Protein backbone atom coordinates (compact mmCIF):
# COMPACT_ATOMS: atom_id res chain seq x y z
CA UNK A 1 0.00 0.00 0.00
CA UNK A 2 2.79 2.43 0.90
CA UNK A 3 4.54 1.67 -2.39
CA UNK A 4 1.31 2.67 -4.16
CA UNK A 5 1.06 5.87 -2.11
CA UNK A 6 4.68 6.76 -2.90
CA UNK A 7 4.04 6.18 -6.61
CA UNK A 8 1.03 8.51 -6.44
CA UNK A 9 3.00 11.24 -4.66
CA UNK A 10 5.72 10.94 -7.31
CA UNK A 11 3.02 11.46 -9.94
CA UNK A 12 1.93 14.68 -8.18
CA UNK A 13 -1.17 13.21 -6.53
CA UNK A 14 -1.50 13.74 -2.74
CA UNK A 15 -2.31 10.67 -0.69
CA UNK A 16 -3.81 9.51 2.55
CA UNK A 17 -2.61 6.02 3.50
CA UNK A 18 -4.91 3.97 5.73
CA UNK A 19 -2.66 2.39 8.35
CA UNK A 20 -3.83 -0.05 11.01
CA UNK A 21 -2.48 0.77 14.45
CA UNK A 22 -0.14 -2.22 14.53
CA UNK A 23 1.52 -1.20 11.29
CA UNK A 24 2.46 2.39 12.12
CA UNK A 25 6.13 1.58 12.87
CA UNK A 26 6.46 -0.48 9.69
CA UNK A 27 4.94 2.36 7.70
CA UNK A 28 7.42 4.85 9.18
CA UNK A 29 10.45 2.58 8.61
CA UNK A 30 9.47 1.69 5.06
CA UNK A 31 8.75 5.28 4.07
CA UNK A 32 12.42 6.19 4.62
CA UNK A 33 13.63 3.69 2.03
CA UNK A 34 11.09 4.97 -0.46
CA UNK A 35 12.44 8.50 -0.07
CA UNK A 36 9.23 9.83 1.49
CA UNK A 37 9.84 9.77 5.26
CA UNK A 38 7.28 12.54 5.76
CA UNK A 39 4.43 10.90 3.85
CA UNK A 40 1.31 11.21 6.02
CA UNK A 41 -0.99 8.40 7.10
CA UNK A 42 -4.49 8.14 8.50
CA UNK A 43 -4.78 5.87 11.52
CA UNK A 44 -7.24 3.04 11.79
CA UNK A 45 -7.43 2.26 15.54
CA UNK A 46 -6.77 -1.35 16.53
CA UNK A 47 -7.14 -3.95 13.81
CA UNK A 48 -10.29 -4.12 11.69
CA UNK A 49 -10.26 -7.92 11.70
CA UNK A 50 -10.81 -7.97 15.46
CA UNK A 51 -13.64 -5.43 15.48
CA UNK A 52 -17.37 -5.65 14.95
CA UNK A 53 -18.81 -3.90 11.93
CA UNK A 54 -20.15 -1.18 14.23
CA UNK A 55 -16.75 -0.72 15.89
CA UNK A 56 -15.06 -0.46 12.51
CA UNK A 57 -17.60 2.08 11.29
CA UNK A 58 -17.25 4.19 14.42
CA UNK A 59 -13.44 4.14 14.26
CA UNK A 60 -13.46 5.21 10.64
CA UNK A 61 -15.99 7.99 11.08
CA UNK A 62 -14.64 9.29 14.40
CA UNK A 63 -10.88 8.97 13.83
CA UNK A 64 -9.83 8.08 10.31
CA UNK A 65 -11.96 10.53 8.31
CA UNK A 66 -10.46 13.56 10.06
CA UNK A 67 -6.94 12.28 9.46
CA UNK A 68 -7.66 11.57 5.79
CA UNK A 69 -8.80 15.18 5.41
CA UNK A 70 -5.65 16.39 7.15
CA UNK A 71 -3.43 14.16 4.96
CA UNK A 72 -4.98 15.52 1.78
CA UNK A 73 -5.29 19.21 2.64
CA UNK A 74 -2.31 20.12 4.82
CA UNK A 75 1.29 20.28 3.61
CA UNK A 76 3.42 17.67 5.48
CA UNK A 77 6.47 18.82 7.42
CA UNK A 78 9.73 18.92 5.46
CA UNK A 79 11.93 15.82 5.66
CA UNK A 80 15.63 15.65 6.46
CA UNK A 81 18.11 13.09 5.17
CA UNK A 82 20.05 11.05 7.73
CA UNK A 83 23.83 10.81 7.47
CA UNK A 84 25.28 7.29 7.28
CA UNK A 85 28.78 5.79 6.99
CA UNK A 86 30.20 4.95 3.57
CA UNK A 87 30.66 1.28 2.63
CA UNK A 88 34.46 1.28 3.02
CA UNK A 89 34.53 3.39 6.19
CA UNK A 90 35.96 1.69 9.24
CA UNK A 91 32.78 1.58 11.25
CA UNK A 92 34.23 0.54 14.59
CA UNK A 93 37.54 -0.41 16.19
CA UNK A 94 37.77 -2.67 19.22
CA UNK A 95 38.02 -6.15 20.66
CA UNK A 96 35.76 -9.08 19.78
CA UNK A 97 33.29 -8.42 22.58
CA UNK A 98 33.16 -4.68 21.89
CA UNK A 99 32.64 -5.20 18.16
CA UNK A 100 29.77 -7.55 18.83
CA UNK A 101 28.22 -5.26 21.40
CA UNK A 102 28.47 -2.34 18.95
CA UNK A 103 26.91 -4.31 16.10
CA UNK A 104 24.10 -5.52 18.33
CA UNK A 105 23.38 -2.05 19.65
CA UNK A 106 23.14 -0.79 16.08
CA UNK A 107 20.82 -3.55 14.93
CA UNK A 108 23.48 -5.10 12.68
CA UNK A 109 23.44 -8.70 13.89
CA UNK A 110 20.88 -11.34 14.69
CA UNK A 111 21.61 -11.62 18.39
CA UNK A 112 24.45 -14.09 17.99
CA UNK A 113 28.12 -13.07 17.83
CA UNK A 114 29.40 -12.27 14.36
CA UNK A 115 32.83 -12.74 12.86
CA UNK A 116 34.32 -9.23 12.69
CA UNK A 117 34.35 -8.07 9.04
CA UNK A 118 37.92 -6.83 8.78
CA UNK A 119 39.71 -5.92 5.56
CA UNK A 120 41.71 -9.15 5.55
CA UNK A 121 38.59 -11.29 5.98
CA UNK A 122 36.56 -9.41 3.39
CA UNK A 123 39.36 -9.55 0.83
CA UNK A 124 39.60 -13.32 1.27
CA UNK A 125 35.97 -13.57 0.19
CA UNK A 126 36.44 -11.21 -2.74
CA UNK A 127 39.12 -13.51 -4.17
CA UNK A 128 36.35 -16.08 -4.77
CA UNK A 129 34.53 -13.92 -7.30
CA UNK A 130 35.61 -12.35 -10.58
CA UNK A 131 33.12 -9.54 -10.05
CA UNK A 132 34.05 -5.97 -9.24
CA UNK A 133 33.46 -5.36 -5.51
CA UNK A 134 31.47 -2.24 -6.39
CA UNK A 135 29.18 -4.02 -8.83
CA UNK A 136 25.54 -3.43 -7.91
CA UNK A 137 23.33 -6.48 -8.41
CA UNK A 138 20.17 -4.56 -7.66
CA UNK A 139 18.46 -2.24 -5.24
CA UNK A 140 16.59 -3.94 -2.42
CA UNK A 141 13.45 -2.73 -0.70
CA UNK A 142 12.43 -1.66 1.85
CA UNK A 143 15.65 0.26 2.54
CA UNK A 144 16.46 0.78 -1.16
CA UNK A 145 20.11 -0.03 -0.58
CA UNK A 146 22.51 -1.23 -3.25
CA UNK A 147 23.22 -4.96 -3.23
CA UNK A 148 26.96 -4.84 -3.90
CA UNK A 149 29.52 -7.60 -4.15
CA UNK A 150 31.42 -5.85 -1.36
CA UNK A 151 28.42 -5.98 0.99
CA UNK A 152 27.93 -9.68 0.21
CA UNK A 153 31.51 -10.34 1.30
CA UNK A 154 31.11 -8.28 4.49
CA UNK A 155 27.91 -10.04 5.51
CA UNK A 156 29.33 -13.42 4.49
CA UNK A 157 32.25 -12.90 6.85
CA UNK A 158 29.88 -11.86 9.63
CA UNK A 159 27.73 -14.97 9.15
CA UNK A 160 30.70 -17.25 9.72
CA UNK A 161 30.89 -18.47 6.12
CA UNK A 162 34.15 -19.61 4.60
CA UNK A 163 35.53 -17.54 1.71
CA UNK A 164 34.85 -20.32 -0.81
CA UNK A 165 31.10 -20.00 -0.17
CA UNK A 166 31.23 -16.58 -1.86
CA UNK A 167 29.97 -17.78 -5.30
CA UNK A 168 26.90 -19.21 -3.58
CA UNK A 169 26.32 -15.98 -1.65
CA UNK A 170 26.49 -13.94 -4.86
CA UNK A 171 23.96 -16.23 -6.56
CA UNK A 172 21.68 -15.92 -3.55
CA UNK A 173 21.66 -12.14 -3.70
CA UNK A 174 21.05 -12.29 -7.44
CA UNK A 175 17.97 -14.36 -6.59
CA UNK A 176 17.00 -11.98 -3.78
CA UNK A 177 16.91 -8.96 -6.11
CA UNK A 178 14.94 -10.81 -8.80
CA UNK A 179 11.51 -9.15 -8.92
CA UNK A 180 9.81 -12.49 -9.32
CA UNK A 181 10.89 -13.47 -5.81
CA UNK A 182 9.34 -10.37 -4.23
CA UNK A 183 11.83 -9.63 -1.45
CA UNK A 184 9.89 -6.49 -0.56
CA UNK A 185 7.21 -8.72 1.01
CA UNK A 186 9.67 -10.34 3.43
CA UNK A 187 8.34 -8.30 6.35
CA UNK A 188 4.73 -9.41 6.01
CA UNK A 189 2.82 -10.66 9.02
CA UNK A 190 2.79 -14.30 7.95
CA UNK A 191 6.50 -14.33 8.75
CA UNK A 192 7.44 -17.03 6.26
CA UNK A 193 11.11 -17.96 6.05
CA UNK A 194 13.20 -18.60 2.97
CA UNK A 195 14.43 -22.06 2.09
CA UNK A 196 17.63 -22.18 0.07
CA UNK A 197 17.93 -25.29 -2.07
CA UNK A 198 21.38 -26.12 -3.40
CA UNK A 199 22.15 -28.29 -6.41
CA UNK A 200 25.22 -29.37 -8.31
CA UNK A 201 28.72 -30.69 -7.71
CA UNK A 202 29.35 -27.79 -5.35
CA UNK A 203 27.29 -29.61 -2.71
CA UNK A 204 30.04 -32.18 -2.27
CA UNK A 205 32.93 -29.86 -3.09
CA UNK A 206 32.09 -27.64 -0.14
CA UNK A 207 30.92 -30.36 2.22
CA UNK A 208 27.22 -29.55 2.55
CA UNK A 209 25.12 -32.05 4.45
CA UNK A 210 22.51 -33.61 2.17
CA UNK A 211 21.68 -36.77 4.08
CA UNK A 212 20.44 -37.39 7.60
CA UNK A 213 19.36 -34.22 9.43
CA UNK A 214 19.40 -32.22 6.19
CA UNK A 215 17.42 -29.34 7.70
CA UNK A 216 19.21 -29.21 11.07
CA UNK A 217 22.05 -26.86 12.03
CA UNK A 218 25.37 -28.55 12.68
CA UNK A 219 27.21 -28.38 9.37
CA UNK A 220 29.19 -25.23 8.73
CA UNK A 221 28.21 -24.60 5.08
CA UNK A 222 24.49 -25.35 5.51
CA UNK A 223 24.21 -23.28 8.68
CA UNK A 224 26.40 -20.30 7.87
CA UNK A 225 24.99 -19.75 4.36
CA UNK A 226 21.49 -19.86 5.84
CA UNK A 227 22.54 -17.32 8.43
CA UNK A 228 24.05 -15.10 5.72
CA UNK A 229 20.66 -14.91 4.00
CA UNK A 230 18.96 -13.42 7.04
CA UNK A 231 21.86 -11.10 7.88
CA UNK A 232 21.68 -9.73 4.35
CA UNK A 233 17.92 -9.28 4.67
CA UNK A 234 18.58 -7.35 7.87
CA UNK A 235 21.54 -5.24 6.88
CA UNK A 236 21.03 -4.49 3.21
CA UNK A 237 17.34 -5.11 2.51
CA UNK A 238 16.50 -3.49 5.84
CA UNK A 239 14.12 -5.96 7.49
CA UNK A 240 14.31 -5.37 11.22
CA UNK A 241 11.87 -6.64 13.81
CA UNK A 242 9.68 -4.01 15.43
CA UNK A 243 10.30 -1.83 12.40
CA UNK A 244 9.93 -3.04 8.81
CA UNK A 245 9.68 -6.76 9.67
CA UNK A 246 6.11 -7.37 10.85
CA UNK A 247 6.32 -11.16 11.24
CA UNK A 248 3.70 -12.08 13.81
CA UNK A 249 5.89 -14.99 14.92
CA UNK A 250 8.55 -15.63 12.29
CA UNK A 251 11.17 -18.34 12.20
CA UNK A 252 14.90 -18.49 12.71
CA UNK A 253 16.75 -18.77 9.41
CA UNK A 254 16.59 -22.14 7.69
CA UNK A 255 19.82 -23.99 7.02
CA UNK A 256 20.54 -24.70 3.35
CA UNK A 257 18.85 -27.79 1.97
CA UNK A 258 21.25 -29.58 -0.36
CA UNK A 259 19.75 -32.17 -2.69
CA UNK A 260 21.04 -35.73 -2.72
CA UNK A 261 22.05 -35.92 -6.37
CA UNK A 262 23.65 -39.35 -5.91
CA UNK A 263 20.20 -40.80 -5.44
CA UNK A 264 18.61 -38.56 -8.07
CA UNK A 265 21.15 -39.78 -10.60
CA UNK A 266 20.77 -43.43 -9.60
CA UNK A 267 16.98 -43.48 -10.02
CA UNK A 268 16.99 -41.45 -13.22
CA UNK A 269 15.07 -38.45 -11.91
CA UNK A 270 15.92 -34.86 -12.70
CA UNK A 271 17.42 -32.75 -9.92
CA UNK A 272 15.31 -29.94 -8.49
CA UNK A 273 17.42 -27.39 -10.36
CA UNK A 274 15.83 -28.59 -13.61
CA UNK A 275 12.46 -27.36 -12.26
CA UNK A 276 14.06 -23.89 -12.20
CA UNK A 277 15.13 -24.17 -15.83
CA UNK A 278 18.73 -25.31 -15.44
CA UNK A 279 20.53 -28.35 -16.74
CA UNK A 280 21.21 -31.34 -14.52
CA UNK A 281 24.72 -30.93 -13.13
CA UNK A 282 24.60 -27.14 -12.95
CA UNK A 283 25.54 -25.53 -9.67
CA UNK A 284 22.42 -23.61 -8.66
CA UNK A 285 20.53 -22.04 -5.80
CA UNK A 286 16.74 -21.94 -5.68
CA UNK A 287 15.02 -19.77 -3.11
CA UNK A 288 11.40 -19.60 -1.99
CA UNK A 289 9.61 -18.52 1.17
CA UNK A 290 7.59 -21.03 3.14
CA UNK A 291 5.17 -20.44 5.96
CA UNK A 292 5.57 -23.74 7.72
CA UNK A 293 6.27 -27.38 7.14
CA UNK A 294 4.86 -30.76 8.00
CA UNK A 295 6.93 -33.85 8.66
CA UNK A 296 5.23 -36.91 7.22
CA UNK A 297 6.44 -39.87 9.21
CA UNK A 298 6.38 -43.43 7.90
CA UNK A 299 5.34 -43.10 4.29
CA UNK A 300 5.02 -46.86 4.03
CA UNK A 301 4.46 -49.18 1.10
CA UNK A 302 5.99 -50.36 -2.11
CA UNK A 303 3.49 -48.97 -4.58
CA UNK A 304 3.35 -45.25 -5.37
CA UNK A 305 -0.44 -45.27 -5.61
CA UNK A 306 -0.60 -46.44 -2.00
CA UNK A 307 2.16 -44.16 -0.70
CA UNK A 308 1.27 -40.88 -2.35
CA UNK A 309 -2.29 -40.24 -1.04
CA UNK A 310 -0.65 -39.56 2.35
CA UNK A 311 1.45 -36.79 0.77
CA UNK A 312 -1.47 -35.44 -1.27
CA UNK A 313 -3.53 -35.21 1.89
CA UNK A 314 -0.81 -33.10 3.54
CA UNK A 315 -0.66 -30.73 0.57
CA UNK A 316 -4.43 -30.25 0.62
CA UNK A 317 -4.51 -29.69 4.39
CA UNK A 318 -1.77 -27.07 4.18
CA UNK A 319 -3.96 -24.98 1.89
CA UNK A 320 -6.27 -23.38 4.49
CA UNK A 321 -6.13 -19.57 4.23
CA UNK A 322 -3.32 -19.90 1.72
CA UNK A 323 -6.00 -20.57 -0.88
CA UNK A 324 -5.76 -16.83 -1.23
CA UNK A 325 -2.73 -17.71 -3.40
CA UNK A 326 -4.87 -19.99 -5.56
CA UNK A 327 -7.61 -17.45 -6.28
CA UNK A 328 -7.49 -13.69 -6.54
CA UNK A 329 -4.74 -11.15 -7.24
CA UNK A 330 -2.04 -13.71 -6.39
CA UNK A 331 -3.88 -16.58 -8.06
CA UNK A 332 -1.95 -19.59 -9.27
CA UNK A 333 1.19 -18.84 -7.29
CA UNK A 334 1.19 -21.66 -4.72
CA UNK A 335 4.39 -23.66 -5.12
CA UNK A 336 4.70 -26.20 -2.26
CA UNK A 337 7.99 -28.02 -1.90
CA UNK A 338 7.96 -31.71 -1.04
CA UNK A 339 11.20 -33.21 0.21
CA UNK A 340 11.30 -36.97 -0.14
CA UNK A 341 13.82 -39.09 1.70
CA UNK A 342 15.96 -41.14 -0.70
CA UNK A 343 14.29 -44.44 0.16
CA UNK A 344 10.86 -43.03 -0.70
CA UNK A 345 12.10 -41.66 -4.01
CA UNK A 346 13.87 -44.94 -4.81
CA UNK A 347 10.76 -46.97 -4.02
CA UNK A 348 8.60 -44.79 -6.25
CA UNK A 349 11.15 -44.82 -9.06
CA UNK A 350 11.52 -48.60 -8.82
CA UNK A 351 7.84 -48.84 -9.76
CA UNK A 352 8.67 -46.94 -12.94
CA UNK A 353 7.29 -43.57 -11.91
CA UNK A 354 9.02 -40.37 -13.00
CA UNK A 355 9.01 -37.21 -10.93
CA UNK A 356 6.33 -35.81 -13.24
CA UNK A 357 4.19 -38.92 -12.64
CA UNK A 358 4.39 -38.16 -8.93
CA UNK A 359 3.38 -34.55 -9.50
CA UNK A 360 0.42 -35.59 -11.64
CA UNK A 361 -0.80 -38.01 -8.98
CA UNK A 362 -0.47 -35.41 -6.24
CA UNK A 363 -2.27 -32.83 -8.36
CA UNK A 364 -5.13 -35.25 -8.97
CA UNK A 365 -5.45 -36.16 -5.30
CA UNK A 366 -4.66 -32.97 -3.37
CA UNK A 367 -8.24 -31.77 -3.68
CA UNK A 368 -10.99 -30.44 -1.47
CA UNK A 369 -14.76 -30.04 -1.91
CA UNK A 370 -15.71 -26.83 -3.69
CA UNK A 371 -18.01 -25.68 -0.89
CA UNK A 372 -15.15 -26.11 1.61
CA UNK A 373 -12.78 -24.19 -0.67
CA UNK A 374 -15.21 -21.26 -0.88
CA UNK A 375 -15.98 -21.40 2.84
CA UNK A 376 -12.29 -21.13 3.78
CA UNK A 377 -11.83 -18.14 1.50
CA UNK A 378 -14.94 -16.47 2.86
CA UNK A 379 -14.36 -17.17 6.56
CA UNK A 380 -10.57 -17.32 6.90
CA UNK A 381 -9.35 -14.47 4.74
CA UNK A 382 -10.08 -10.76 4.85
CA UNK A 383 -10.63 -10.65 1.11
CA UNK A 384 -13.98 -10.23 -0.60
CA UNK A 385 -15.98 -13.44 -0.89
CA UNK A 386 -14.88 -15.49 -3.85
CA UNK A 387 -17.15 -17.58 -5.99
CA UNK A 388 -15.37 -20.27 -8.00
CA UNK A 389 -18.00 -20.33 -10.76
CA UNK A 390 -17.70 -16.59 -11.22
CA UNK A 391 -13.90 -16.68 -11.21
CA UNK A 392 -13.88 -19.35 -13.92
CA UNK A 393 -16.50 -17.47 -15.92
CA UNK A 394 -14.28 -14.36 -15.84
CA UNK A 395 -11.31 -16.50 -16.90
CA UNK A 396 -9.44 -15.73 -13.68
CA UNK A 397 -9.26 -19.44 -12.79
CA UNK A 398 -8.74 -22.57 -14.90
CA UNK A 399 -11.96 -24.36 -15.91
CA UNK A 400 -10.98 -27.27 -13.70
CA UNK A 401 -12.24 -25.30 -10.71
CA UNK A 402 -15.84 -25.32 -12.01
CA UNK A 403 -16.61 -28.39 -14.03
CA UNK A 404 -20.11 -28.63 -12.56
CA UNK A 405 -22.38 -26.82 -10.12
CA UNK A 406 -22.09 -29.62 -7.58
CA UNK A 407 -20.85 -27.95 -4.36
CA UNK A 408 -19.36 -31.28 -3.31
CA UNK A 409 -17.20 -31.64 -6.41
CA UNK A 410 -13.49 -31.92 -5.70
CA UNK A 411 -11.40 -28.99 -6.85
CA UNK A 412 -7.60 -28.70 -6.93
CA UNK A 413 -5.50 -26.53 -4.69
CA UNK A 414 -2.92 -25.82 -7.38
CA UNK A 415 -3.35 -24.87 -11.03
CA UNK A 416 -1.20 -27.59 -12.60
CA UNK A 417 0.95 -30.60 -11.64
CA UNK A 418 4.20 -28.74 -12.27
CA UNK A 419 3.33 -26.28 -9.47
CA UNK A 420 4.30 -28.98 -6.97
CA UNK A 421 8.07 -28.91 -6.48
CA UNK A 422 9.99 -31.98 -5.35
CA UNK A 423 13.47 -32.47 -3.96
CA UNK A 424 15.23 -35.53 -2.54
CA UNK A 425 17.26 -35.26 0.66
CA UNK A 426 17.34 -36.45 4.25
CA UNK A 427 18.03 -39.74 5.99
CA UNK A 428 18.63 -42.23 3.17
CA UNK A 429 16.96 -45.15 4.89
CA UNK A 430 14.01 -43.58 6.69
CA UNK A 431 10.63 -43.43 5.03
CA UNK A 432 9.81 -39.88 6.06
CA UNK A 433 9.01 -36.83 3.95
CA UNK A 434 8.61 -33.09 4.54
CA UNK A 435 6.10 -30.72 2.96
CA UNK A 436 6.87 -26.99 2.92
CA UNK A 437 3.79 -24.73 2.73
CA UNK A 438 4.16 -22.16 -0.02
CA UNK A 439 3.90 -18.44 0.60
CA UNK A 440 2.62 -17.94 -2.95
CA UNK A 441 3.70 -14.82 -4.79
CA UNK A 442 5.28 -13.28 -1.71
CA UNK A 443 8.48 -15.31 -1.90
CA UNK A 444 7.99 -17.04 -5.24
CA UNK A 445 10.60 -19.64 -6.25
CA UNK A 446 13.57 -18.19 -8.11
CA UNK A 447 16.66 -20.07 -9.23
CA UNK A 448 20.10 -18.76 -10.17
CA UNK A 449 23.19 -20.42 -11.55
CA UNK A 450 26.25 -20.20 -9.33
CA UNK A 451 29.07 -18.54 -11.18
CA UNK A 452 32.46 -19.88 -10.15
CA UNK A 453 35.62 -17.77 -10.43
CA UNK A 454 38.03 -18.65 -13.24
CA UNK A 455 40.61 -19.91 -10.73
CA UNK A 456 38.07 -21.91 -8.71
CA UNK A 457 40.03 -25.14 -8.43
CA UNK A 458 43.26 -23.42 -7.47
CA UNK A 459 41.55 -21.15 -4.97
CA UNK A 460 39.67 -24.05 -3.45
CA UNK A 461 42.88 -26.00 -3.07
CA UNK A 462 44.60 -23.07 -1.37
CA UNK A 463 41.66 -22.54 0.94
CA UNK A 464 41.66 -26.19 1.98
CA UNK A 465 45.31 -25.89 2.98
CA UNK A 466 44.85 -22.60 4.84
Amino acid sequence: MLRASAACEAAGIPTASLVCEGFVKQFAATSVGLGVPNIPHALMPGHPSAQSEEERRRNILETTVEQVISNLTRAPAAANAQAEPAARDIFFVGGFQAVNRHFYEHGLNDGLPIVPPTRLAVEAFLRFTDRDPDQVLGVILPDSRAATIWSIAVNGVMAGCRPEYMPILVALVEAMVDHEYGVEHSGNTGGGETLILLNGPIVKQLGFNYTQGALRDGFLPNTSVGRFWRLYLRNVAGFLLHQSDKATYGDTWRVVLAENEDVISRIGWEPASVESGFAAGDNTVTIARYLSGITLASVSGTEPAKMLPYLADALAKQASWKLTFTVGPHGGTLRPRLVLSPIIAETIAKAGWSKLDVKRFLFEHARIPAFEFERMLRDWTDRPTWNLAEEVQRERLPKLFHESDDPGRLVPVFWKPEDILIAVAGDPLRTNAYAFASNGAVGFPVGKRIELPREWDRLLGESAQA
Partner: protein
Amino acid sequence: MSPVNDDGHYEVFWPRTARQTQLRPLAPRAHTLDGKTVAQLWNYMFYGAEVFSWLEQGLKARFPGVRFVSWNEFGSIHGTDERTVLAGLPQRFKELGVDAVISGMGS
Protein backbone atom coordinates in the same frame (compact mmCIF):
# COMPACT_ATOMS: atom_id res chain seq x y z
CA MET B 1 48.89 -9.91 38.09
CA SER B 2 46.94 -7.97 35.49
CA PRO B 3 44.45 -9.89 33.33
CA VAL B 4 45.58 -10.78 29.81
CA ASN B 5 43.55 -9.15 27.06
CA ASP B 6 42.66 -11.98 24.67
CA ASP B 7 39.79 -10.10 23.05
CA GLY B 8 41.77 -9.13 19.93
CA HIS B 9 41.74 -5.90 17.96
CA TYR B 10 39.48 -5.45 14.96
CA GLU B 11 38.89 -2.63 12.54
CA VAL B 12 35.54 -3.49 10.99
CA PHE B 13 33.43 -2.34 8.07
CA TRP B 14 29.82 -1.25 8.08
CA PRO B 15 27.66 -4.07 6.69
CA ARG B 16 25.10 -1.81 5.07
CA THR B 17 25.33 0.08 1.79
CA ALA B 18 24.25 3.47 0.58
CA ARG B 19 20.56 4.09 0.05
CA GLN B 20 19.81 4.55 -3.62
CA THR B 21 16.83 6.85 -3.15
CA GLN B 22 17.00 10.56 -2.54
CA LEU B 23 14.37 12.44 -0.57
CA ARG B 24 11.43 12.96 -2.86
CA PRO B 25 9.08 15.91 -2.54
CA LEU B 26 5.47 15.08 -1.75
CA ALA B 27 2.67 16.29 -3.98
CA PRO B 28 1.15 19.68 -3.24
CA ARG B 29 -2.09 19.61 -1.23
CA ALA B 30 -5.32 21.45 -2.04
CA HIS B 31 -7.01 23.52 0.67
CA THR B 32 -10.30 21.69 0.29
CA LEU B 33 -11.68 18.46 -1.13
CA ASP B 34 -14.81 20.18 -2.43
CA GLY B 35 -15.03 19.71 -6.16
CA LYS B 36 -12.12 17.27 -6.11
CA THR B 37 -11.99 13.69 -7.38
CA VAL B 38 -10.57 11.19 -4.92
CA ALA B 39 -9.46 7.74 -6.11
CA GLN B 40 -9.46 4.69 -3.85
CA LEU B 41 -6.61 2.19 -4.09
CA TRP B 42 -6.91 -1.11 -2.28
CA ASN B 43 -4.79 -4.20 -1.65
CA TYR B 44 -7.93 -6.30 -1.06
CA MET B 45 -7.23 -6.73 2.63
CA PHE B 46 -8.77 -5.85 5.97
CA TYR B 47 -12.36 -4.98 5.04
CA GLY B 48 -11.36 -2.21 2.68
CA ALA B 49 -14.62 -2.35 0.70
CA GLU B 50 -16.69 -1.29 3.69
CA VAL B 51 -14.01 1.07 5.02
CA PHE B 52 -14.00 3.00 1.75
CA SER B 53 -17.80 3.26 1.80
CA TRP B 54 -17.69 4.78 5.31
CA LEU B 55 -14.93 7.15 4.29
CA GLU B 56 -17.06 8.29 1.37
CA GLN B 57 -19.91 8.90 3.80
CA GLY B 58 -17.73 10.89 6.22
CA LEU B 59 -15.99 12.94 3.54
CA LYS B 60 -19.20 13.79 1.71
CA ALA B 61 -20.65 15.07 4.97
CA ARG B 62 -17.74 17.55 5.17
CA PHE B 63 -17.27 18.21 1.46
CA PRO B 64 -20.56 17.72 -0.43
CA GLY B 65 -18.86 18.35 -3.76
CA VAL B 66 -16.23 15.60 -3.44
CA ARG B 67 -16.35 12.76 -5.99
CA PHE B 68 -14.88 9.28 -5.74
CA VAL B 69 -13.38 6.75 -8.13
CA SER B 70 -13.88 3.26 -6.73
CA TRP B 71 -11.04 0.82 -6.05
CA ASN B 72 -12.81 -1.39 -8.59
CA GLU B 73 -11.36 0.80 -11.34
CA PHE B 74 -7.78 -0.14 -10.52
CA GLY B 75 -7.74 -3.76 -9.32
CA SER B 76 -5.56 -4.90 -6.42
CA ILE B 77 -2.43 -2.86 -5.76
CA HIS B 78 -0.84 -5.89 -4.08
CA GLY B 79 -1.13 -8.64 -6.67
CA THR B 80 1.40 -10.42 -8.82
CA ASP B 81 1.17 -7.53 -11.27
CA GLU B 82 1.79 -4.82 -8.66
CA ARG B 83 4.59 -3.18 -10.64
CA THR B 84 2.44 -2.97 -13.78
CA VAL B 85 -0.55 -1.62 -11.87
CA LEU B 86 1.50 1.07 -10.14
CA ALA B 87 3.29 2.06 -13.34
CA GLY B 88 -0.07 2.59 -15.03
CA LEU B 89 -1.57 4.76 -12.28
CA PRO B 90 -0.42 8.22 -13.51
CA GLN B 91 -2.07 7.66 -16.89
CA ARG B 92 -5.26 6.29 -15.30
CA PHE B 93 -5.40 9.28 -12.96
CA LYS B 94 -5.16 11.64 -15.94
CA GLU B 95 -7.94 9.80 -17.74
CA LEU B 96 -10.16 9.83 -14.66
CA GLY B 97 -9.32 13.38 -13.54
CA VAL B 98 -8.05 12.23 -10.16
CA ASP B 99 -6.91 14.95 -7.73
CA ALA B 100 -6.11 12.86 -4.64
CA VAL B 101 -5.83 9.25 -3.49
CA ILE B 102 -6.82 7.26 -0.44
CA SER B 103 -4.71 4.11 -0.31
CA GLY B 104 -5.36 1.13 1.96
CA MET B 105 -5.27 -1.10 3.91
CA GLY B 106 -2.71 -1.89 6.58
CA SER B 107 0.79 -0.73 5.71
